[in-house]
């Protein structure tokens, strides 16, 4: 019997050997993959030749010849397509960073509000979540841009706040800071205060571990971070002027103008993503076993300390990974900017630059590579953080 089984393994049924079968399957897959790639490449080559498109990245150094309404670095129509790429990328990063901060803030507030004992507040938070997460983001962006911001008055009839901040159809105009000589001391003081408070918090924690006595380190560092720069600012004679915008003709002169496109995109991205973050925060907090709270209270911890030291650290372990994926979604969703003409990477590079040069292959590849890199880097960092947080679990 045994012999016959062995023989069948050796001779007759090579096909029944799992490891051999795995080899065959992978070989077939490899061949199929190679065939598909070869077909795609050869088709693309012949198509490109037929249409007379030259490939390569040489176009990046050519003159772009179009201007962009919002540039964080020097950029003119004479700049190259490579600079177009940089400007677009920076604009994408700007709106993403603004969106991530605002969405996280609103999301946490709404998520905690959903668990409030106040019935009205909890229901209002629920209505917020259910409304905004069930409406397409693109629709929300268009809504803020075309239905709300485009309905604002012209520059001449701007809504003004104390004659310093103006809101009109061309955007939000705010005073621009003009640092005078000596202002750098204030920035150095701020940096010093941040570093000092970092060490202060560490010292307070060690001291508490050693002696059991607590220092109000949070308040102390807040006072340090706010107070020190302010004191330096006052002592050095207030070395900062503000350039207040003023109406000149049909538009405002001076100040910083926040484009309506940026404002609409920022609003929509923050509000939409916040509705998802709120749900993550709520389920994270609810996932902490109620016994944990009861145990903390019976040890005599105050509700505030219970929340800070017991509930939030455990909830964060669940919240952080999902929060990160929402932040990544926000960054990817910022590409919808192209629908309202905010000059982000997709709009100026995969849009205008692509139409001008016709280098579809290269430009789309670069654009996708940028988003892929951001995604992979962020998820890599998050995995590091996760590993650190998870170890604390026993």
């Amino acid at each position, binding site marked *: 019997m045994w012999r016959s089984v062995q023989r069948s393994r050796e001779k007759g049924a090579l096909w029944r050997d799992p490891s051999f079968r*795995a080899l065959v*399957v*992978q070989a077939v*897959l*490899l061949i199929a*993959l190679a065939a598909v790639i070869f077909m*795609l490449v050869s*088709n*693309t080559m*012949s*198509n*490109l030749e*037929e249409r007379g498109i030259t490939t390569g990245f040489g176009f990046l150094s050519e003159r772009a010849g179009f201007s962009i309404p919002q540039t964080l670095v020097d950029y003119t129509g004479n700049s190259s397509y490579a600079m177009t790429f940089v400007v677009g990328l920076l604009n994408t990063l700007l709106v993403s960073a603004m969106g991530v901060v605002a969405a996280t803030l609103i999301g946490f507030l709404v998520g905690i509000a959903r668990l*409030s*004992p*106040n*019935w*009205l*507040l909890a229901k*209002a938070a629920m209505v917020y979540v*259910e*409304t905004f*997460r*069930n*409406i*397409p*983001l*693109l*629709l*929300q962006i*268009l*809504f803020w841009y*075309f*239905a709300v911001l*485009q*309905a604002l008055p012209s520059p001449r009839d701007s809504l003004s706040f104390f004659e310093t901040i103006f809101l009109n159809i061309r955007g939000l105009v705010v005073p621009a800071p003009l640092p005078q000589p000596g202002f750098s001391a204030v920035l150095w003081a701020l940096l010093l205060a941040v570093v000092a408070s970092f060490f202060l918090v560490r010292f307070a924690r060690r001291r508490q571990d050693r002696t059991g006595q607590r220092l109000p380190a949070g308040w102390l560092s807040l006072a340090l971070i706010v107070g020190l720069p302010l004191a330096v600012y006052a002592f050095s004679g207030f070395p900062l002027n503000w350039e207040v915008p003023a109406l000149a003709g049909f538009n405002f002169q001076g100040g910083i103008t926040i484009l309506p496109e940026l404002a609409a995109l920022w609003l929509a991205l923050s509000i939409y993503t916040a509705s998802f973050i709120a749900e993550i925060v709520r389920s994270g907090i609810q996932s902490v076993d109620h016994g944990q709270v009861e145990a903390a209270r019976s040890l005599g911890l105050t509700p505030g300390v219970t929340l800070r030291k017991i509930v939030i650290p455990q909830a964060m372990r669940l919240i952080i990974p999902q929060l990160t994926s929402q932040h990544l979604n926000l960054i*990817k*969703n910022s*590409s*919808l900017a*192209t*629908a309202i003409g905010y000059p982000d990477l*997709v709009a100026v590079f*995969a849009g205008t630059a*692509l139409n001008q040069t016709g280098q*579809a*292959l290269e430009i*789309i590849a670069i*654009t*996708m590579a940028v*988003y*892929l890199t951001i*995604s*992979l880097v962020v998820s890599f960092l998050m995995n590091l953080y996760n590993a650190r947080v998870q170890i604390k679990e026993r």
Partner: protein
Amino acid sequence: MTTSSPSSETMSTPMIPQREPPDPRRGVTGWLRKNLFSSPLNSIVSLIMLAFAVLIVWPLLQWAIIQADWLGDTRQACTGEGACWVFISARLESIVYGFYPESEIWRVNIVFVMLAGLIAWLVLPRLPSKGWVALFALTGFPIIAFFLLAGGAFGLMPVSTRDWGGLMLTLTIAVVGIVGSLPIGILLALGRRSSMPLVRGVSVVFIEFWRGVPLITVLFMASVMLPLFVPSEIEFDKLLRALVGIMLFWSAYMAEVVRGGLQSIDKGQDEAGMSLGLGYWQRMGLIVLPQALKLVIPGIVNTFIALFKDTSLVLVIGLLDLLSIIQSGLTDPEWLGYAMEGYVFAALVYWVFCFSMSRYSQRVERKLHTGH
């Protein structure tokens, strides 16, 4: 001495039925006290929320319903202060059917009715043989719907996809995306858990690639680059190109959802199947997948919701779905200035679909929880 005893007299009067002690925690005032005014801070919050409701909800109601104009078919019908819903009703046909020829609209209606019937059958808990209906919804229905909508066979007049639009196009993209991405996603999820390194590697790269890029670049790629990838003799329909991109993109997300389900199935299930002598596909198809898929129905429905919302992105490549047909209506010189009405209506349509899907997924989730 025939005086009746006072005690017996008092006994004969009927007793007043017992009443519950007054409880400050019950009744309307009790509810208010507990939920709105339990502490000074809570009271302040409640008052702010009430003021907010009065300031926001009331003007909104006035705009949307009380002062709105509902009847008529030209701009002149809109005189009031409120919303002008005539803007929507005047172009309702194109919002629902796009530019589908008017004489052929019955074909779209049949598909709508079939779709509604299938969904109802799958969602209502009482109806039998859900498995077969689901199989039909994933295989037979798309074929029938394709021939009904596109025509060109069985004596039906061909209708170019350029004339498809509105809600009908949105639903078409959503259904094709769902029907296409689910099977591909399942295969990818199985591939990612395969013991064969090459299969696993290909699946991981495929999934992470699509999950790392925005859908909008995928759509750009589909509309600009797909024609370059195939022999130049093959003409690719614009809608088909978008559909290919959407399917590939969402199959990666679907794969991750399904993988979550596969991971939560005990390894013993698979091993038991092995010891019964079942092959890989038998074990997966008969033992592992039925359990895993059932577990992740909420996740799958959530992906459907995201897919449904993201069908609106086809606006950027120039397909006239629900949102983009309304968007293009806003630039109609005869109807300028009704952006608010257009967006609110579109939002309402999307919201109804997505909200009901999310309610369904929550219901399934609750049902699954009680099982254990």
